[in-house]
């Protein structure tokens, strides 16, 4: 589903964020990418949504080589890859419902479809009761669930979560991870970037550890051991 082929990423200031890195994530997998801060995890995520481009090598998403993707095709790619971040990136003046709706509106989706999709998504993330609340009226975990809901509106093949639990307490973090697992069982490939040892250890899923732009371990049913 996602394939990095000998990817090297050098930022303009000569920082290496990936060094000849190869990684294959199969459809339906739930993969955790772990590693210390500044090792290149976010850069990998950014290359998947074509926010950054590899300096050398190739990136393939869903069989589509996006290494030299045309700017006009980037929106097409982004509707196939949902993303969530540590900061939830919600619009503070919009309600839960409106925040999710926004993602469909700006993609030119018809009102009729929006009215059908948003309630479904709210159900998946368990926020039907909170639909008219504003972000500041929600807990961090609930806000992150709104963001996940928004990432799901286009029924993406891949959900990319970059430190989604980074600013949450253990209980909320656990809830979010359970939600990601549920989404994974519904058929979406999940790429989770995280620091949280506890979570990774409990997941018993594939773990890829990165250090200084290089994969240092890749284990099925792995543990967080750096």
């Amino acid at each position: 589903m996602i394939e990095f082929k000998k990817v090297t990423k050098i930022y303009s200031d000569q920082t290496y964020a990936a060094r000849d890195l190869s990684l294959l994530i199969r459809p339906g997998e739930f993969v955790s990418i772990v590693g210390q801060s500044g090792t290149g995890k976010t850069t990998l995520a950014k290359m998947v949504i074509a926010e950054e481009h590899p300096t050398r090598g190739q990136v393939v998403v869903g069989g589509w080589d996006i290494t030299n993707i045309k700017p006009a095709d980037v929106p097409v790619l982004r509707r196939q890859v949902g993303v969530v971040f540590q900061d939830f990136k919600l619009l503070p003046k919009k309600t839960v419902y409106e925040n999710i709706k926004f993602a469909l509106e700006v993609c030119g989706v018809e009102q009729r479809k929006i009215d059908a999709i948003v309630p479904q998504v709210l159900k998946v993330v368990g926020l039907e009761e909170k639909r008219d609340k504003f972000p500041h009226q929600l807990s961090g975990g609930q806000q992150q669930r709104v963001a996940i809901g928004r990432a799901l509106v286009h029924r993406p093949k891949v959900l990319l979560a970059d430190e989604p639990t980074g600013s949450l307490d253990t209980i909320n973090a656990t809830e979010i991870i359970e939600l990601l697992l549920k989404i994974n069982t519904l058929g979406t490939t999940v790429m989770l970037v995280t620091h949280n040892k506890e979570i990774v250890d409990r997941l018993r899923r594939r773990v890829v550890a990165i250090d200084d732009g290089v994969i240092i371990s890749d284990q099925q049913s792995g543990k967080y051991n750096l």
Partner: protein
Amino acid sequence: MLVTIIRTSHFAFQHFWRNLWISAITIFILTLTLFIVSLVGSLNLLAGQAIKAVEDKVDIDLYFKQGTDEADILKAKVYVESLPEVSKVRYISRDEALESFTATHTDDPDIQAALAELDSNPLPASLSVQANELNQYQAIITQFESSEYDTLVEDKNFSDHQAVIDRLSGLTKRIYQGGLIISFIFVFISVVMMYNTIRVAIYSHREELGIMKLVGATDWFIRAPFIIESVLYALLSSILAMSILSVIAFSAAPYVNAFFTGYDFSLDLFFVTNFWIIALGQFLISLILAVGSSMLSIGRYLKV
């Protein structure tokens, strides 16, 4: 497609309201610019009309000797008309000359009394000759003097308004140059203003814009609200400028028309007949200014 137009317009209106102060100032500056450009245009038009009015007054009068046959005068008329430099020849018979003389001096009792005492008409018949171009009068006179008809003529009168025309042309040119400079300054100010207004709009919507990019909105959808916003500015400012211009045109009309009495020019009529052309011109100018500068701003600050 329709959905996109409605939604992007909706966003454009939101931008407009959220930064209402900046929107208002932008419209004010655009309106001022349009107004100044139109004012310079109007002054030019009026000066042009004034020159034309004076040019119309320039002519050569050929006064025929008393007792010249009307048939000979008409032959002379045909000859003058055949000269390539001549645009118009008018024959004024002795009776007509007397009539208009009496009419123009109707308020002067001395002249009226003097005319009443004469039993015969003292005024000569004449031809009034107009050239195509101002500088052709001398050539017409020279040619006429070498013709057989010159002997019929007692007196020639070339009413030269060249000095007035030169002064007017000089004035027009100065108005034009000054106006051009002022217009350029205001055009520059409104471009800078517009550029910054869109920049502020982009800045104040950076969160939304970031999310739009992440969830897969197209470049067009992201940019369109800002373009529509600038079209809105263009529309509102040209309506405002046109309203101000209407008020001024109609209140100045009596004075301007009084100045052009006797000539075929009326400011209010001119304004009414050309209303839509002027309005469209204003809208186009502001559209180019507003959309052009917002495109520059979008290109610079809205990375998609």
